């Protein structure tokens, strides 16, 4: 199968996944009962409740509600948020840059620190440095992000005044709007706000990346071709980077696609702690308010992003290892 065929197959699979996800989320949101009661006043009469139910469309059979939603989806219209009374997709896309910013920063930190730590641990296997790094990795995987976030707020933000406690200065939003000058001007103010939340999210992934890189590299370092490379007199740097790491990348790369999804799902708590106005918090509130159009819009955006990232990972996989043909 050629690349075009593979792409077509993957896109079809992605479409099925996205539709499946919307169907499941739609059904589970409705399993919780009739949301109308959340959109009427405390003193509403049964007539007013019935009128509001009809206004919101919840008087229709579930099947009809889903069909209406699907029809809207085809036309790019996911309906208006029940809470904000604005188009749901617009609300999600408005918050999306904040979440993407946080996720990418966390991913960057996890990779920038996790890979070198994993490499050092592998190269110092069995020594105190290896033990120390693995101990740190274990701690990193054990700390709940909520607790870590609060500790950073209390110490780094409140007690030591090193970083701002909460909030955000937009960075990607002006960039997406084509206003790179504003984005550039915002950068010095935006970075301090980004540090604590992204570190909080990154810690778990960082630890996992370090462990994975270490084990993957250890396996590769014992291979014959590494010995051969050293025997040829190549510098250790070249042996590690060009021969060992390149092959150790494959499992790491597989994990990165999944890690992106993990980081996306991890933003809910961190966005709450650091008052970061992203999609995670939006969805959390929307679920609490049973704002079904808004939850659906967010689910679609998240699933599309997740599917796209994993598609990209598949393609990179093929590029890195020509032996692999995804069928």
């Amino acid at each position, binding site marked *: 199968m050629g690349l075009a065929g593979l792409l077509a197959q993957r896109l079809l699979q992605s479409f099925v996944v996205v539709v499946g996800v919307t169907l499941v989320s739609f059904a589970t949101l409705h399993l919780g009962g009739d949301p109308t009661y959340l959109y009427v*006043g405390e003193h509403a009469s049964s007539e*007013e*409740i019935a009128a509001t139910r009809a206004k919101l469309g919840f008087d229709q059979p579930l099947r009809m509600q889903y069909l209406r939603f699907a029809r809207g989806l085809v036309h790019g219209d996911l309906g208006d948020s029940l809470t*904000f009374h*604005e188009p749901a997709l617009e609300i999600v896309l408005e918050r999306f840059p904040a979440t993407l910013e946080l996720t990418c920063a966390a991913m960057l930190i996890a990779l920038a620190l996790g890979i070198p730590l994993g490499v050092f641990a592998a190269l110092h296997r069995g020594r105190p440095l290896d033990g120390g790094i693995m101990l740190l990795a274990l701690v990193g995987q054990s700390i709940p992000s909520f607790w870590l976030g609060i500790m950073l707020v209390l110490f780094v933000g409140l007690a030591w005044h090193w970083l701002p406690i909460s909030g955000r200065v937009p960075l990607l939003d002006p960039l997406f709007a084509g206003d790179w000058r504003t984005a550039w001007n915002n950068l010095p103010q935006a970075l301090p706000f980004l540090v604590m939340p992204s570190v909080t999210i990154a810690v778990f992934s960082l630890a996992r990346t370090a462990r994975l890189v270490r084990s993957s590299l250890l396996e590769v370092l014992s291979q014959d071709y590494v010995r051969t490379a050293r025997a040829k007199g190549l510098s250790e740097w070249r042996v590690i980077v060009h021969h060992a790491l390149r092959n150790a990348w494959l499992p790491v790369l597989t994990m990165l696609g999944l890690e992106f999804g993990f980081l996306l799902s991890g933003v809910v708590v961190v966005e709450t702690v650091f008052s970061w106005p992203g999609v995670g918090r939006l969805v959390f509130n929307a679920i609490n308010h049973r704002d079904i159009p808004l939850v659906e819009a967010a689910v679609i955006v998240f699933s599309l992003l997740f599917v796209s990232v994993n598609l990209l990972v598949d393609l990179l996989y093929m590029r890195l290892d020509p032996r692999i043909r995804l069928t």
Partner: protein
Amino acid sequence: MNRLTGRQRRGIGTSMRSFALLGTMYALGLAVSCAAAIAAETPRQVLRIGMAVDADSLDPSEADAQDTMSIAHLLWGTLYKTSSDGKLDPYFALSAKLSDDGRAYTFKLRPDLKCENGAPLTARDVAYSFDHPADPKFRFTGHAAGFVLPALRYTGTRIDDPLTVTIEFAAYNPIALGLIAEMFIFCRAPYEAMTPEYAASHASATGPYRLVEWRHDDRVVLERNKSYALPAPAYDGVVFRVIPEASTRTAELLAGNLDIMSGVVADQIEAINHSGTAKVASVASIRRIYVGFNQNPKFAATPGGRAIKDPRVRRALQFAVDVPTLCDALLRTPCARMATMIFPPNDKTGIRADPYDPDRAEALLDQAGYKRGADGVRFALTLQTPRGRYPNDVNIALAIAQYLSDIGVKTTVDVLDFASVFVPLVRQHVAGPLFLMGSSGASWSALYDLSDFPAADGGANYTDFADPEFFAGWRQIDQTHDPAEQAKVVRGMMNVFHERGTWLNLYFLPDLYGVSDKISWRPRADELIALD
């Protein structure tokens, strides 16, 4: 085992140095930008308020949530407004006159009112402020369309002259003026030019402030409305920051980044009071916290459900709960004890809260024929509670359950998700048979506080209370327009309500705010963050 040679280590050392250099550069850049961000302080004239949730809509026809109302009252005026001590004072209106038949209020408007764009605000705009939210084609569900206009039984407006407008409703309503005071007045021209979707996040003000920016889930920024002709507000601007996590909000207050924060949680009271930079300000709010005894026939088949149909049993359970101790131990602040459902400053009934008297409770239960069995249990009940809706709600419910179990009423607590489970049960009148609930009243009218019980089949009569003597009171109130006579009737209704033990009265929820020492501000009972 793979051991590294010296040359191998040197190779790694080179890469380590590269990483270290990069790291140092990053850290330096970060330090410089941190200093810049921290140095960029908000000007002093701007009041910074931290709240837990974002506004829901900045369309005056659609705004609904309590935090939104604090913002909305700064953006738009009202014909009358409620003062902090619960009085209705003229605001955009100079006067109000009730018609002889009691079905219309005529308002004389101030002549100096202006829209944000500088155009004069006239009776036509006031009429539009009522007609627009009432227009069924827009399907508004907010406070105006969902509560005020139906409660008022609004029928229309009449423009008598450019500065005189009459608001008409279907029947006499003793709390009509207070309800009208909850309607925001906005200008017709700018709102006719907006779609409802656009209006949801773009405000055209008539009040003391105008909207500068609303960054969803982050902040709402207001600045002084230059067209506002009434006395200028105290601050040049107000920033409402959305900080959902209470401990982060507290940290921002203590760091000096907020002037006021709402929703202080009990375990942070001491930290704030001992910070040296802020204090906790507490007020008994208009929100009544009670346990409802559900009389719905659904529960009649259960022993507990049958038992609580007897008023003596309900009174007994009231005597069994030590409310002041609940407040001290679980809310860590004294509470205004709830004697009746009427907010204390407006409560002229003379009814006192039942004291904690477990012996009397047991005696009442014995009299009612519910003696302890061999296992010490008289009957069993379930107490349903939401989680996280009211401060420490689950623990309050658990403590109540223990008090009731102590007098032989074995009580099990059923913790429910508020939005998906608890609210639908309550609204369908099938929560319980006991349920922990908060219900909002008003600071300006005793009659408003009774509005949970407009009729035996009223939507907010969640306990299906159906005493005919109580509901006969409404007919008497409708027949007289004299407030003194109405107060007498209310006293009678409240006596019935109290003697029947309709609710297990707990307390008026104490609202806790963190207030910076740099400002002088007092909280209001009606849960509005007002700057008067």
